[in-house]
């Protein structure tokens, strides 16, 4: 993900995305994943890979919000910060996977050359958007009709059902729109295809509002 920095900078100019917010969440996650759960500012700079201005701003904001604390040269999570980071990490597990796969692919296949390029495109943007938005979204049944949403998570107990939903194109990071609701079903449009989802299923699909994109 070497071009991440670029992406952030591009975003400032081209899209109205709150970069600081993204960087802040990234930092929390990086600390959470670090050995002994602490990390130096220098390493953060290397890992996040955006310009220093953003990092300083993000760190000072995190400090102000009492999410991180300094201990010598290292930064650690506060109790609040830890719980925040855990939820981010959990929420991102799916997406981590998505990215991890691409790394292996580079070794595995010629076609993977373009993967990094792919990351910087829409889906990655959407996925990154998931990092920045608060909470893990609302169930589809509670989502407003005609608003654009972003699928954040699929939380269904039945594995076969989850796979079926995914194979029908209802996938985290994908845009979704509720067209209609009946007493038993929610009718959604994903990638131009419409699907009727029973309420029991719709309840397990978490959606975030797709604002400003």
């Amino acid at each position: 993900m070497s071009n991440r920095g670029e992406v952030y900078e591009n975003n400032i100019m081209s899209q109205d995305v709150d970069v600081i917010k993204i960087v802040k969440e990234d930092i929390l996650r990086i600390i959470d994943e670090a050995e002994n759960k602490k990390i130096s500012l220098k390493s953060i700079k290397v890992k996040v890979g955006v310009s220093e201005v953003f990092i300083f701003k993000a760190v000072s904001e995190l400090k102000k919000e009492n999410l991180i604390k300094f201990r010598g040269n290292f930064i650690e999570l506060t109790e609040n910060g830890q719980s925040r980071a855990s939820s981010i990490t959990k929420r991102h597990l799916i997406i981590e996977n998505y990215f991890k796969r691409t790394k292996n692919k580079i070794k595995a296949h010629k076609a993977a050359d373009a993967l990094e390029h792919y990351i910087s495109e829409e889906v990655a943007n959407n996925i990154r958007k998931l990092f920045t938005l608060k909470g893990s979204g609302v169930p589809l049944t509670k989502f407003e009709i005609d608003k654009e949403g972003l699928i954040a998570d699929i939380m269904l107990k039945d594995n076969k059902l989850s796979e079926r939903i995914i194979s029908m194109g209802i996938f985290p990071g994908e845009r979704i729109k509720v067209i209609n609701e009946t007493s038993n079903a929610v009718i959604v449009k994903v990638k131009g295809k419409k699907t009727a989802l029973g309420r029991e299923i719709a309840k397990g699909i978490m959606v975030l509002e797709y604002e400003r994109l």
Partner: protein
Amino acid sequence: MKDFKALLIGQPNVGKSSLLNALVGSKVIISNYPGTTVEITRGEKILGKAKITFEDTPGIYSISDRSEEEKITEKKLFEGAADGAIIVVDSTSLERNLYIVLQILEAQIPVIIALNFVEEAEKKGIKIDHKKLEKILNIPVVPINPLRGKGINELINVTLRVKGIKEDIFSVRYDDDIEKAINKISSKIIQTSLPNRFIALRVLEEDADFYRYLKNKEVIKATKGILSNHPKVSEDISITRYGTAAFIAREVTQIIKLRDKRGDLHEQFDKILLHNIWGPFFTILFFLIIFGLLMFLGNLLQGFLLNLTEGITSYLHTVSPSIIIVILAQALYGLMVGVSIALPYVFLFYLFLGLTEDVGLLARFIVNLETLLKKLGLPGKAFIPLALGLGCTVPAIRATRILSSRKERFYAASFFPFVSCSSRIGIIMGIVGYYGGLFLVFSVYVTLIISALIWAFIVKRVAYIENQPLLLELPSYRRPLMENIITKSWIRMKDFVYLVIPLLAIGGAIYAVLNITGITNIIVEPLSPIAQWLGLPAVTIIPLIFGFLQKDLTGAMLLSVLGSNISTILTPLQIYTFGLVATMQIPCVIALGMLIREFGVKKAVLLTGISIIYGLLFAGLIWRIISIF
């Protein structure tokens, strides 16, 4: 050259059946809703010395079956010893369709991609570089249009060149932990024709159907350690697979942002047609209109045909009456009357059904009637077999395969006594309506509905049937092709032509023989208590018995035993009762045969027996109740 067997695989409603028809000539029914095909159909193509067998299959979204029809496809794929799979792919949603491609490649089955809906995609501004797709996946990709016959020859040529699975086809790589777990499980798999990696993945995806390939189940527990940071492994696997599909799709697709005006318009349609209140309202209105048209146009056609029949048969009566002539005349009469009563309704209904299917309405009706069906304890999808049942009960019984559990299927099938097939529509409209008027037709239908509600009420008391939640892709609205509707009606009416028409003639002849020999009385006599219970003349037992063999015989036999001035012989109440008792049962021996095939002898006989008794009881009670007033 060796024979080649290719399976036509793909997600539902992507054009597999259309492709089979394009490859080998019209054979199977094509409709614009997911779940049209519920059985395997074979078609052969002979090219010089080579023979390719193509097999159309029910659509699958992925290798995780949720209904019987999907199991059929999976069985074919993994146990059917096919030489390869032609996967039909919808270009308008490439990434989703590549999911099943990647999954089948994991099973190391040689694959050819047939890229369908290329023009539709281009209209939406989606352009697919099929050469690049071919390169990435390292499998052949052929753009096709089965409706116009484009790409079909090339597809055949490519199929002939397929020789086993290539070494370096594309395969999805999962993250390190999952890969480790795959290896671990792979080493504990018994010898099979399926690749270990594929089985390991299915096991990790918790597909219990594949556990039987494991040497022992301990290994599942052992992998839990490796996968400690994957709380939902199976979902991570699907997501990675989908992510890879999405990546490939993105790589080969060029999107020109066009405003999808048609899509926006169709969305507006759906806002109304799937509206919580308007939706069910329009659906019911739609069926009322169809039935109104059936009644009106059907009666018109029937009148014309019956007049023709009278003309011809009255001429025969003037010929010297030898026994042979009498039998022949009766056979001809049975045939012509039967055709006059049944054909108009059967034919018209299939025309309407075909239109409804191909426009894309049928699938919408599922959503609209789901609430209603749920009250009966049926899942929304049961609407498909029930709607098809208005045409013919036999394929409708088979269509219950789209439901999830056997219990759900059998329960849905138990409603066919109340869902009048077009032959029974012939009785209701061609006998009850033609001789008794619109009000009686209406009454019969209302009674059928009430009796179905009572049936559901009783069954729900004694059995618990769990319904799966609705999950249904809504097909795009399409302009129906008249050619397809006619072809499809023909396929559906084949039985009528080849089976019913001879039966009508034979039935007529048998009736003449029974009459001449006096056997009629021997049959009618012992059964007269039944006629009495129903408040009908004893002879009407004859059409009822013939009717059990084949519903189209009922009308013909009734006219044979009573003559054509039924309205003066039977009272309106008797016409109504006859209509009711003749329709409220499993309609014919062919349907019984299909029940046996799908559910076994015991259940089939049980359902048929109960339906006859229920119908007799109900009809007998109703006329008594009405007589009181």
